[in-house]
């Protein structure tokens, strides 16, 4: 009887102490000495694990960039693989410090989930992959077909719109992970796989026989992918936002991991400001002067990361397209670094 009452009292006391904990993520990461970053469960080019357990990819590089900026070491990251369905809850609950998992920036997600998108690192759009043997040349021939889709994605909505627009019918077969989605497509459970184009290329090279499938020309939606943080923590939001910008600006200014040291010492004013040998941009973020220098030195500028992970230096061989600098015909543009 006594213990029961003690428990009850403790429970009541604990309840009234549940304060509105809105921790400062930046301080948290600094004091932990580690960044906890949510990534995919495995998606070639964006976030994938190698045999040794190391993570790589464009999304992973964003985590690494933030760790380099905040902790001075791009390797101080704990990766947390998440399915599409798990990702927002993991961020909301504070299990991860940031989410970098090919996540589309949408109005609803930005406004109603208590989250903020800290930029776009890849401009994408949803598309279709079909088996060649079906002889389908265009998405408009897919009336009545079955679609393999990953559950909890913006793709689920994009495809519904597209089929409605074109007065066609489809059946959605949903899966939790991209591996399952792919094997559903391979086994013939569905006629086509629908996902962001970049991910179609990534999934395609994972097929047993990639040559037997094609990606159709249609792009049916806007899928700007970028890192996400919790709303209401502006200091941290700024850190992630400007870490991404530093990579983009690095490329624009011609700063690479190879020449960063030289440019820090005697580059143009803009390069020096970015690399922290002039001005106090780092200080304004609550970081060291070398924040962007560390990013570019350890992770590389945007172009280096892109080519290594999804571009010509990777099996995906995706061309820059929309993801080129604005000065090269793309739409990549960092706000002014001053």
């Amino acid at each position, binding site marked *: 009887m006594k213990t029961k009452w003690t428990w009850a009292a403790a429970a009541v006391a604990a309840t009234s102490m*549940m304060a509105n904990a809105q921790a400062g993520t930046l301080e948290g990461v600094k004091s932990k000495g580690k960044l906890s970053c949510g990534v995919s469960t495995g998606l070639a080019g964006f976030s994938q694990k190698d045999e040794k357990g190391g993570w790589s990819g464009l999304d992973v590089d964003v985590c690494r960039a933030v760790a380099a900026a905040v902790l001075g070491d791009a390797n101080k990251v704990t990766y947390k693989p998440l399915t599409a369905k798990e990702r*927002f809850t993991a961020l909301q609950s504070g299990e991860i410090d940031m989410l970098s998992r090919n996540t589309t920036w949408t109005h609803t997600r930005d406004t*109603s989930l*208590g989250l903020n998108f800290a930029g776009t690192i890849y401009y994408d759009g949803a598309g279709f992959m079909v088996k060649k043997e079906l002889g389908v040349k265009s998405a408009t021939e897919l009336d009545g*077909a*079955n679609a393999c889709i990953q559950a909890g994605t913006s793709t*689920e*909505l994009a495809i519904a719109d597209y089929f409605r627009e074109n007065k066609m019918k489809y059946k959605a077969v949903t*899966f939790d992970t991209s591996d399952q989605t792919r094997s559903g497509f391979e086994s*013939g459970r569905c006629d086509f796989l629908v996902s962001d184009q970049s991910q179609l290329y990534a999934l395609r090279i994972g097929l047993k026989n990639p040559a037997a499938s094609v990606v159709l020309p249609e792009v049916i939606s806007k899928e700007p992918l970028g890192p996400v943080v919790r709303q209401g923590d502006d200091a941290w939001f700024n850190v992630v936002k400007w870490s991404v910008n530093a990579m983009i600006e690095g490329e624009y200014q011609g700063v690479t991991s190879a020449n960063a040291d030289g440019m820090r010492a005697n580059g143009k004013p803009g390069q020096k400001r970015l690399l922290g040998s002039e001005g106090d941009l780092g200080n304004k973020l609550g970081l060291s002067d070398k924040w962007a220098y560390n990013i570019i030195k350890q992770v590389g500028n945007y172009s280096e990361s892109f080519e290594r992970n999804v571009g010509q230096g990777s099996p995906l061989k995706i061309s820059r397209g929309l993801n080129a600098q604005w000065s090269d015909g793309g739409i990549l543009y960092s706000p002014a670094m001053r």
Partner: protein
Amino acid sequence: MNVPQNQASTKKVAFFNNPANRAVIYQALLMVGLGYFFYTIISNTLANMEARGIKSGFDFLWGTAGFDILMSLIPYEPTDTYGRTFIVGMLNTVLVSSIGIVLSTVVGFVMGVAYFSHNWLIRKIATVYVETFRNIPLLLQVFFWYFAVLSALPSARQSLSLGEAIFLNVRGLYLPDAVGEPGSGVVYAAIAVAIAAIALLRRWAKRRQALTGKQFPLLYATLGLLLGLPLIAFLLMGMPFHWDYPALKGFNFQGGITIIPELMALALALTIYAGAFIAEAVRAGVQSVPHGQTEAARSLGMKEKQIMNLIVVPQAMRVITPVLNSEYQSLVKNSTLSTAIGYPDLFTVFVGTTLNQTGQAIEIVFMTMAVYFVFNMLISVAMNLFNKRVALVTK
């Protein structure tokens, strides 16, 4: 409860020392404490959510869902509301759970009785079945049926077929559907009449046996009514049905009834898993009936089948029923493994996709828990009623 009254009559006790009063006070305190506990949790959560800019409330149920659902027992389009996705998911949960409950009971009883078979092979099959499927995690079994067995079936264009009427391929099982024409209502009515007649007949036969000891061939009468009445109606109305055969049109089979592989895999896994536990319960139930009962029945000259039906099973049911109750409840809860293979039940559709598209985790999880809670309460109430009927009546 009698004790305090006795004391009170002999000696006057202080208000606080009266156990009855104390009980009331403690209960009241506990209620206040609990109320405070939940009030704080709820108001804290709401305040925290608002501070973090997370939307709350149930308005989202009227918003347009905008995504497709693989299978629905009621008409559903992506233009329908999130509220409707809740209903669609719930009905699919009811479907797979009901199939699982009925089939696992059949499998469980057959396998449980097979333990006592005189045939060595049948006995061994029952043992191996129970020992194997009871000891493999259910999720693994779901994966096995879905990814190993059903995914290996041929593609739609190379379907296995039975008389060009039934087709089986990687996208499911396609069966012909009997479509009613005008007049088919009479046949359905005949089925209803047959069922009612059977119920009456059974009561009458029971009463007569109790009074006179005469038995009535109930099994044949039941079968005769159930098949005969509808058949007569069917012929009289000029066979008011035609078959709608599934046929390959475009990418998929159209027409007839489609049973998607996600449903097959989940129903199979649930049936086989729960069936193994039920078989164990049936075995234990039968063994709990003292051997003397069987021997006594035998010496009265009863046939083996009668001994089983009239002596052993009614007594065994007292042991089996409580286990059935908890097995059925587990089955309903286990049906949430649907999400691993994308069977569109409440958990996959509502807690999966709807939650993800709206972000309203608290409301959605709360609604879903309420549904599973109600389902299990219903099962519990039904099984308790049944238990009362089979329980030992002490006179």
